[in-house]
């Protein structure tokens, strides 16, 4: 498709507006993270640090366990993302490609499980975990997070698989491929953008969770980054510069993962395959 100069100018301006909109709160976070404790709460507020200091970052770095919290978060979020993407892609394929008894009911059930808020579920879930001796473990936390991400993952992936023409799998199966092979070799490459979207979704959900991590993890060394940051917000002292510094670092990690993944957000080969 041909686009004129005016079109590109419009896209460029719109993208910059979007970038400014998205980055404004980050500007405030980063600016605050370099202020002193007094300046960050002073009135009238300063937009840029008057006395530039990296104390907040030094404190975060020196604080026992913060590096550990980041690693824990990566482990829990990564585990959740992998588990729900793997289980999810099979279920989504099944829902998309087969018409079987109870299909609609099952699809609806997936969503229904998400309609009760976590506040109610966390208590009984804790009881279950303590029966099988899994409380205060990252596995217990990953399973809990997966129970939230999985239904969303299945629904999203089913949507993407629906867009892949059935003829592709059929062609492969006529060539002698099994169901599993056709999923792995034909469908999989075509839904990569969707897989990226769902993986990022699961990762970020587990990354930002507070309630489950708070209730299921008691050993300080096992706690996650989000819990660690909210622990800087006490009734007695709120360390704004530290919170901002920790959040900036905390956002950088998923953003980096996404940067690695975003190249798969490209058109699959579906179009070409249909033609062929």
């Amino acid at each position: 498709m041909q686009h004129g100069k005016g079109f590109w100018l419009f896209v460029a301006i719109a993208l910059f507006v979007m970038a400014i909109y998205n980055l404004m709160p980050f500007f405030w976070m980063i600016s605050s993270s370099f202020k002193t404790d007094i300046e960050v709460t002073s009135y009238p507020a300063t937009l840029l640090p008057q006395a530039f200091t990296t104390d907040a970052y030094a404190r975060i770095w020196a604080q026992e366990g913060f590096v550990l919290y980041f690693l824990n978060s990566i482990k829990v979020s990564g585990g959740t993302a992998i588990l729900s993407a793997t289980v999810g892609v099979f279920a989504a394929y099944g829902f998309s490609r087969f018409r079987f008894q109870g299909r609609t009911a099952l699809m609806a059930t997936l969503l229904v499980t998400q309609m009760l808020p976590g506040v109610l579920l966390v208590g009984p879930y804790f009881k279950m975990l303590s029966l099988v001796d899994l409380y205060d473990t990252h596995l217990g936390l990953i399973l809990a997070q997966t129970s939230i991400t999985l239904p969303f993952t299945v629904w999203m992936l089913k949507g993407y698989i629906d867009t892949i023409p059935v003829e592709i799998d059929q062609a492969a199966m006529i060539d002698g491929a099994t169901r599993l092979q056709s999923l792995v070799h034909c469908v999989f490459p075509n839904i990569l953008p969707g897989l990226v979207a769902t993986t990022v979704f699961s990762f970020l959900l587990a990354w930002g969770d507070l309630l489950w991590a708070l209730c299921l993890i008691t050993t300080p060394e096992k706690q996650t980054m989000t819990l660690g940051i909210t622990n800087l917000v006490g009734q007695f002292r709120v360390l704004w510069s530290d919170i901002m510094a920790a959040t900036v670092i905390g956002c950088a990690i998923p953003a980096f993962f996404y940067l690695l993944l975003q190249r798969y957000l490209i058109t699959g080969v579906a179009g070409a395959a249909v033609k062929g």
Partner: protein
Amino acid sequence: MFTRKNKNLAMGAAVLMASVSMGVQTVSAEDITITYSDWQLAQEGWGNSLRTAIAEFEELNPGITVATEPVQLGQRDVRFTTAIRAGQGPDVFALDANPVRQYISAGWVLDLTPFAEAQDPAFFDDFYETSLAPVTVDGAVYGVPMNTVAMGLVYNQAMFEAAGITEPATSWEEFSAHAEALTDTSAGQWATTLVLAPAGFDLRAPSIFHSFGASFLTEDWSASALDTPEMQAAFSYVVDMIQSGVVPPGVTQVDANGARRLLANGQIAMTIGTTWTIPEVSTMNPDLDGWNTLRIAPLPTDGGQEISPHTTLYQKSIFINANTEHPEASWALVDFLTQRAQMERWFDDNNMLSSRRSVNESYGPIQESPFASVVSEEIQHGTFLPLIPEWPRILDSFRQNLQDAVTGTKTAEQALADAHAETNEILGN
């Protein structure tokens, strides 16, 4: 000579003692670990004092290791109740007075009376009766009080002098005049603020209502007392004061920390606080020189009359989880943390008064402290908030209605009437 009854009692005590000491012996042979959770562990100063104390405890009790679990105050009940309901949770933990009755009535904490009596029949004699009240139900004591303090008016002497005020107000009328003089909006200075956010509302705002001679509930805690003339006077005083512009904007979001921050930055001259406010505010802004500029006075009262009680009490007590597998070792820790020596350390480190009469009345530094002497006097004029399981819900309904009046969503009369009705509904009247 023993009477029969006394003999039985003595034998019972001896058996208990033996079992307790045997328990400790088997325990020390096995090398057990107990967990201790306390919101004060999550904060630097308090946390350090507690960790020092626990290290001493471990040295004295070679078989026992104590694992500490810091938790934020706002997240404490979320974590504790989830774990305890599932049969887990820390062996020993600290609570303030608010949720205590809920924990006791749900059976989540052990009755400590047998442990205490086996150790020393006069164990609880040194504690204030006021301090034992929240942790005692039907004669059974479920927690050992550690710190008890009363709320007062914390003010900045330098700002008072600059505004030409020599003495803190004794009546709320005088307080309003001072507030007027202390407010200079163009310089970013206001007189005071109120904690209207949930975190810290419980201790601070209710003190004002108490100092008007008002109560939240009737004496037997069975019905709302929000329709009394005292409460109406206090309620409209508070709303008028906030709307008169002597508090900084944003009062509905101010929590305990926010109020201290405003005081530390010199943006306000007075706030409701107590002994712990001094070290907290001083650390927030070392330039303020809080230990020398800040003072504590009793709260003003309505018309400057003698009203008692006229302030709210805070208390921290230590409890044992009913799910614990190591009650004896847990008791040893509870006992250790609430001993005289530890409480003296709490005052040295954190400016916090003890729940033991002997410490407050005979420990030198407490006697000499200008802060401690005021607050310890005020304990006698303080009262705990109603100790019933419905209280958290009543307090929150009151707080939300107060906010509605402050933001002008409702008139003060309407808001108080609504709070009255809601309270009675919660109490099933």
